[in-house]
């Protein structure tokens, strides 16, 4: 025997773990048990554990990071001033902004604000970088589309009224309170 080799004493192989068919049946057994359990409860008209998406939806906690959206102020305009911090922070380079000037008090706004949702990875860096609380992670997760072009969300598609984002904005402020 070569030097340095240690023979480990292993437990004897059990019949159940060496038989894959049995493991499959064991797994199926769990599914079937749940199925029958739900079926029985459903037949009795009692509790139902499955959420019937999309007819039913769970209310996600505010910490949930869905797709990033732009905060729309009460006057219908975006809070964003096109400072480009999110564009810089974005690890996947999915944001592209072109600024423009207005005569409002806040003189700058994004003329173009595009997010390529097929590249977004929901890391939330854009939200963290934003100095104006203008881009936040929403609870919206339905971003599938039939074409690549459809994955490119423009400013008008991204605007969400501030009232709808209240829970997330409150959550963010709580995060930065300390």
């Amino acid at each position, binding site marked *: 025997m070569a030097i340095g080799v240690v023979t480990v004493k292993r437990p004897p192989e059990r019949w159940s773990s060496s038989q894959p068919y049995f493991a499959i049946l064991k797994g199926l057994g769990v599914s079937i048990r749940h199925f029958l359990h739900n079926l029985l409860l459903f037949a009795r008209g009692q509790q139902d554990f499955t959420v019937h998406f999309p007819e039913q939806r769970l209310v996600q906690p505010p910490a949930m990071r869905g797709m990033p959206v732009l905060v729309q102020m009460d006057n219908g305009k975006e809070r964003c001033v*096109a*400072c480009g911090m999110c564009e810089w922070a974005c690890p996947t380079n999915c944001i592209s902004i072109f600024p423009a000037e207005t005569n409002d008090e*806040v*003189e700058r706004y994004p003329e173009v604000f595009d997010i390529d949702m097929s590249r977004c990875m929901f890391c939330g860096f854009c939200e963290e970088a934003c*100095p104006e609380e203008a881009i936040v992670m929403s609870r919206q997760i339905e971003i599938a589309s039939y074409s690549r072009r459809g994955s490119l969300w423009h400013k008008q598609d991204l605007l969400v009224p501030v009232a709808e984002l209240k829970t997330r904005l409150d959550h963010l402020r709580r995060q930065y309170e300390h």
Partner: protein
Amino acid sequence: MAEAPKLAKITVDGRVIEAPAGIPLLQAMLDAELDIPHYCYHPKLTIDGSCRLCQVKIEGMPKLQISCNTQVRDGLVVSTQDPEVALARRGVMELLLLNHPLDCPICDKAGECWLQNFSMRFGSKISRGLEPRRKRQKRIDIGERMLLDQERCILCRRCVRFCREVSKTYELGTFRLGDRTVLDIYAGRRLDNDYSMCTADICPVGALETKDFHHKVRVWFLEEVGSVCSGCANGCNIHISTYKNRIWRLTPRRNDAVNETWMCDAGRLTYKAVADPQRLRIPLVAANGTLAPVDWPAAIAAAASAMGDLQKQHGAAALGAIASPHLSNEESYCFGRLLAALGVEHRAMAVRRGKADDLLIKAEKAANARGVRELGLVRGADDGVEELLQACERGVVRGLYVCGDDLLAAVDRERLARILGGLELLIVQVTTLEDAFKSAQVVFPTTMLAEKDGTVTNHAGRVQRIEQAVRPPDGWLTDGAIFTALLNHLQSREEKFAVPEIWRALEQDGTAFARIRFAELGAYGAPLA
């Protein structure tokens, strides 16, 4: 030659530095690559001492001294790391930031702002301000190309001194006293001088902004390439700032032998021609009375065979050529080789002329007229233009190869139209296709300086590097590549246009450039003689 200044030995934070006696202590410390915060000091302007940020502790002096207004002399012992200095800096920063608006997200200076940088390094992390910030006028239209934001101004008066000392136009000043002081233009004046945009460069904050770059791109996205301005023969050193393969601004690059730290407004806006939608993007060849777009090899073949046919019919003297002062030295050399191979004797160079002044702006509105002359492509006081035009009128020259658009500006339009109309062959290489050139058989698009590598020679014979900042479209031939391709076609050879090889040839040919080594040009160039 001036006598070398006496060197003085000073000690800064225990380190001995040698510097010429009499220069500002701040400059000596900056030259020794010490990190000293400062706003009002600028190496090319007089000393103002208004920002108070460069204070240091000097042994033997009771109070802290501003290093910009302290002259270097032997035996100075300076401390920049003393707690007293750090406290003074923090105090100055706090006062500067007391009323500074929180505009950073919309300020074009953000990212290259001295106030941002120094407050991150030397300022306090928290604000103790209780009162609301002072309101001032914002976005004041003070000139054709400039905007002023009085809230952001920290009153370093660099711009005021610039207008007094460099442009000598006296438009800007500070008004009122104490904490009511504001920067403004004098009544009835506008900041419209030829160098007004330099005030935005030297402004350490975003108080003075150019309208051209206002709300365009955040500076941290920009990539900078060192190059030379194509606006006139002065050859000011510049940085070309690009983002997404597009030029967004030009800023001066310091070169004390050429432009110090300045450049003119006209030169700064020359970049617009590169992305001009009117610009010619594809070669055109005449077919059935109109110019039709073709691919590059077809245009090269058409031009080469047309020139060959003309010379077969009428002899070598029937072809004339107009060189362009916008091409690099290497491309001009290639053009010279092409003309020599064709035996073209009637040569000229047309240069557009304009306004000139004593500071930087030169009359010849092209970057490389001197280089073309040094290469011996053209002769005579007017670079042979009149002689060539007369040869055309006499019917000696029946075909012309015109490089560059400047011919249109240098010659009377009616006369030019008559001459060009009477030619049998016209090949042009231009940026935009003007009506005068519509009778051409072959039209090549020309490349801008920002799109190619090489060197240019300024009015004083200084050879300076240019570097490619933006890529032309795929398959595009630069001017040098067009000449090389034509020569390849005529002589059935396979050569490529490569700048280092051209320099080897320039040396072997014993041209005026033989003394200069391309690899040793560096950022600041070298004089021809």
